[in-house]
Structure formats: C-alpha cells, structure tokens
C-alpha cells in the first residue's frame, strides 16, 4: 500500500514537473521551479539518484570512464590530465551519493551504443580511440545542459517521453561534466590556456607577472 502511494505521489510530481516545464514563460517557470514542489519535480526527473548511495569504481568501469574522457577531452590531453580526471571520478563515486550509479548507467548506455554501431557485443572500453569518438559523438550530439527553466518545449517533451534521450542527457550532465570538472583541475589544462598552472595550485606570487602565452607545444610536454 505504501509503495503504491509512493508511486502515485512520484507520478503526480513527475507529471506536474513536466507540466511546469512546458509553460511558455521562462520567468514563470523559474518561479515555479524554485518552489519546493518544483524543485522536487525537477530533481525527480533529472537529479542524481542519491538513494543509490556511494561505492568504489571497479577496474573495468574505470577503463570505460577513461575511454569516455579520451573522447571528451582534447585529443592530446595526455595521461597526466586523464589521471587527474580519474582521481576526480573516483572521489565523486566514493563521496557523492548516486554518482557511481550515474557512471554505471552511462557506461551501460555507451556499451549499448557500441553494440548498435559495431554489431557485436563489445565493451565500449575496448574500442579504439576513433571508434569511441564515434560512439560518444552519437550520444552527445544535440544535448544541451541548460538551466532547466530555459529549456525548449521540444527538449522537455523528449526528456519526458524518450528514455534514451533522458539517458543521454543524464550522461552529459552527470558524467561528462564531471570529466570536464576534473580536467580543469589539472595544470596541463590551464597551461593550454596560457597560464602557468592550475590557479588552486599555490604557485606563489606569479599572479603579478604576465602569464605565459597560450601554446599547444607547452601542453604536449
């Protein structure tokens, strides 16, 4: 009985959330989404499922996430930056309830797309770099991580009725963005932008001097 009631409430929240998002006025949507009901509706659709808890990543999962990072990050970002990214993803899975689950869900999506593309039951992690890029591209194409209140009606409808679109959206939002966050904590990423190091690296008083010029050759070191 409790479960039925829970499911009923969840359904109402979801339908209500979709209804909210289909409204035309961005300002009205913002206001409604900022209410506690609106927040719950939004999170029930798009938030990390914190009830899934935390866990360590397995070696095979890490390999898959690194393959994904290889496709998301610049092609010459190198092992150092990927090590920083992996450290970030491990930390996120270990400390952020729901993230390990999102990572696994994304890996499953990547494996499905791999099978669809290449016709064999194969792990995404074992694809070559160019093959992985094709798979990742197919899943990320057209996905916009917007402020939800500004989402277009068509995106809202697709989120609501297409589980695949929702999965792709979640991968972009909860996995790719974590990879990006991890990458921009590496000094290498900042050197590519012409800075001497990652600003959080306690590099001394160099902020008073001109940064070095942006140079890919520096990044390749």
């Amino acid at each position, binding site marked *: 009985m409790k479960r039925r009631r829970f499911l009923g409430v969840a359904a109402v929240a979801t339908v209500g959330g979709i209804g909210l998002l289909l409204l035309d006025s961005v300002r009205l949507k913002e206001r409604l989404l900022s209410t506690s009901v609106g927040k719950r509706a939004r999170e029930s659709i798009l938030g990390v499922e914190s009830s899934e808890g935390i866990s360590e990543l397995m070696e095979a999962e890490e390999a898959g996430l690194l393959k994904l990072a290889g496709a998301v990050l610049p092609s010459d970002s190198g092992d150092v930056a990927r090590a920083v990214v992996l450290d970030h993803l491990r930390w996120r899975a270990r400390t952020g309830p729901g993230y390990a689950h999102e990572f696994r869900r994304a890996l499953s999506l990547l494996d499905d797309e791999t099978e669809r593309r290449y016709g064999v039951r194969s792990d995404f992690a074992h694809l070559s770099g160019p093959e992985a890029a094709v798979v990742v591209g197919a899943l990320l194409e057209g996905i916009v991580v917007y402020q939800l209140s500004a989402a277009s009606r068509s995106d809202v409808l697709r989120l609501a009725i297409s589980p695949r679109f929702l999965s792709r959206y979640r991968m972009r939002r909860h996995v790719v963005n974590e990879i990006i966050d991890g990458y921009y904590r590496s000094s290498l990423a900042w050197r590519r932008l012409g800075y001497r190091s990652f*600003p*959080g690296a306690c590099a001394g008083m160099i902020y008073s001097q001109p940064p070095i010029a942006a140079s890919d050759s520096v990044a390749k070191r």
Partner: protein
Amino acid sequence: MTEAPVRPDPVDVCIVGSGPAGAMLGAALVRSGISVAVLESGPRYPFALRPQAQRDYLRGIDPWVRKPEGLDVYSSVGALDYQLNTMRVRGVGGTSLHWQAETPRLHANDFRMRSTYGLAEDWPIDYPELEPYYVRAEHELGVAGGADPFASPRSAAYPLPPLPYNYMDQLLMKAAQPLGLRFSPIPQARNSKPYGGRSQCLGCATCTICPTGAKASVDLTHVPEIDQSTHGRVIEQATVLRLEPDARGRVRRAVYAGLDRVERAIEATVFVVAGGGIETPRLLLLSSGRQWREGLANRSGLVGKGFREHPICYSSGNVTGPSYAHRISFWTATSNQFWNSPDRVHRSAFSVIFRPMCGPSPSEIARTSTLWGDRLDRLVKAEFGHTVTVESPIEMLSYARNSVDLDPELRDYHGSPAPRIRLSLGEYEAAGVRAAQQVHSQILQAFGATGISADPNVGVQAHPSGTCRMGSDPSRSVVDRDLRCHDVPNLYLVGSGAFTTSGLANPTLTIGALALRLGDHLVSASRAGALR
C-alpha cells in the same frame, strides 16, 4: 522552571562569540591576567585539516560545514534577499575563517557624518581616538598595505609591505590613469612576507579556505593565546540561548547549550556579546524577560534597528585580448577617490576595485557547451578570459525599516526564534550605484572593452552592521563610547553592530580596533577593582 546548572568556575569576563571581536578581546584580556571564558556556538576547524579542506573546496564542497543545519536558520523578508548562511561561519574563529581579509580603516569623516555631511549620526569617538588601536590591530593581524592618498593619517607604517598588484589590475590601472583615477594597494591581513609564524601568501586562489595560513584568521592569530593561558578558555559548541539578570538589573549568567541541547550556565562579572551584526541583537532580543520585556538593553527600542550592509555593484565588458582573470581570488587594487567627495551629501561614497575571478571559468564554459573533444578545446580557448568586471562597494545609511528581529514562526535547533532580516536600499545608495557605474563605464571604455553592461543586481558584501549602535544619547543608541550598554552596566557589545556609521571600509579592522580599545577599558576597570 529548573535553573540550568552553573559551571563551578566563574570568570571575570564571559565573551559570547570567538570571531575577530571576541578572540582579539579575549587574547588582550588574558594577556593582562583577567580570567576569560569565550563561548563559541560552532566547532573547531583544526589547521592541520586545511590542505584536505582546500582540495574538497576545489571540488565544490563548502569547507566550513554547518552541522546541525538547524543552528543556522534565518528568514529574509526585505527587498534584498539576504543570503546569511553564505556569509558567515559558525566555528572557533568565526567569519575570519572564510573572510577575504581586506582591512582598510574607516576614514576620519566616517566618524562625523552628521557634522560633515548633515547625514546619519556622529560617532561618540573620533578617528584620532581609535587610530592607535588601528595600529595595534594591524600588527596583531599582520596587515600588508601601502600608501593611499585618500586615506586618513596614520601614526605608523603597515607591519608588512603591500601584496603585489594582480597583473590584470596593473593593466586596468594603466588604462584608467588618463582618466585621473588613482589606485592604491588594498590593505589586507594576508602575509606578503612570513609574519607571526605564518607563511607568506602562495597565491592559491582559494582564499575562502587558505591552506597555508598566510591569510590571518583569529583561530590562528589570537585563539591559541587564550587556549594556552591558565585563566582563559574557549568553550566550543556552546550556543548561548539567553543572558539572565540579577535583581539589580545586571547580567548574572549566560545560559548555553551544546548539541545535546542540555542547558548549562556560566557566571561572570562582565559579559561581552561579540556575535556579529545579526546574532548580537538576536541574543539581546532572545533575553527578554520580566525585567527586560522588549529585550535586553533595549530601552531605546533600537536593538536590531537600522541594519546596514555594504552593497556592491558591478559592470562588465568584453575584451578581444586576454584579461588574465581567474589567477587569484583576492583583490589587490582600489581607488578611494570617491569616498570623501562633496557629492557624499546626496549620494553614497564608493570605491572602485577589479574582480579577479571575472567571466566564466573554463569549466563553466565547457559544461554548458554542446561540444566535446578538440572542438570543445578550441571553444574554451576562444571564449575564456575575455571578460573584465569592475566593482564598487557602496556606503549605506541606516533606515528604520531595515532590521534584525525575531521570526515569529521559524525556530532554530535549540527552539529559539530565528533571526528575521529586512534589508532594502534607499535613493542615497541608488545614486551611489549610478555614479559608480558611470566610472566603471569610463574605465572599461579606456581599456578597450565592448559590450559594456552595468549589472542591474546589487549584491551585499557580508558586512552586517548598525544593529546596536554606539552613541552618547541613550534614547538614540544602544551602547556608549566604551561599548557598554546604556541600560545594563555589566554588559558590553563589541563588533560591527556597534558601528554608528559604516563608511566604505570592510569592518573587521575596525572591529579589532574597538575590541582592543574595549580590552584597555576592561583592564583599567579590573585594576580599579571594578571586575571583582
């Protein structure tokens, strides 16, 4: 009702709050042999944990966690949404744990606004009287600073040379020079050289959590002196619920509770509330009773009234060349040229500063793009670092409509009514914002920026003040020139709540100077036998 059990060890002075006001006062008192207990609502944050906390902060985790959350409830009902919990830290060291450490002095004119500009009130003390205490506070905190042609006279040099200007600031200052604008280093309690046993600043760009200790915070600069004294102690996680009177109308004891919600009490000869511009008036209002129906020390009705902040306005523009933003998270240059102009009669004083973290970060650009791989890399390279933001802190007057009082419905972890905050700006501040944004536009144009826009949103700087004002007239103020409550002879209030006016200066150095001055007053009283 059963009385809370009293600690068996009464002290000369009980201080509520271990932020800059409470810690600097406490250290000064134990140095003179006066016994002190400092009651702090929050926990200790050991320095050894800061490197890990910095790593967490870089991953988006607030290092100054608030547990239980119910301690920090509040409501904001004014025109400006006051985000109190992003502005304070409940812990040993108080808000100095996460402050920006900017430590300018008030200008001499800020103490005589009524006499000079016909506005607000004059302080019952003046700048020359507080100046020696400014010097002491600068030495105790370790302030790095340099000459400012618009500042009031100083009797001693800063203990540390100024921090070098941010490279971006150097470029902007050069562009602003033909406009006749003069800039100077922002004084700050951040070590430009090793000082006080603490490291030189290493430019970590995470000033909210300084992993090196180069940024002064009173848990490092003052609390150890209290801890190590035989007659001083800091009692952490002790939230003061109310102050209780004796038959003579003096405060007899402070009742506090820890996370176990069990009430305890401590007795002292003198009580000092140093809880900041919000919690200090709240505690006075929470201490109402048969003797003090409208709240403790509130015969004037001014406790919590006239709440002020330092509003801040912004303007941004785009540049084709690099702006060199996002290298550090502290501000280095200021122009105080617009602090004391004759225009102050009809519009707020303002200063001009350059935001070091302006425009979106690389991560923010990448997260919201639709690209990946090398195309994403090219996008970030093209878009990052082409925004410049000029800002102006704005002076604010006291208005009767702005206040801190008790929320009739919302209660905190201990069941006490939460603070309810009302804040809105007036035409005086709006005129200051307009004047500041004209200057911003001139600077940005001189720098070659395009797409210049003045942000319509005005923020605040987490400088609550004015809620227990200092004055000579008991009907128009809460505390006297010695920070003693007009109505309660053994109760003192120290902190920004006592500021008669706020000028433009970040409040902490003035808070420290007032705390040291109060320390001298209490030491004198002690020597005269008045603390026995």
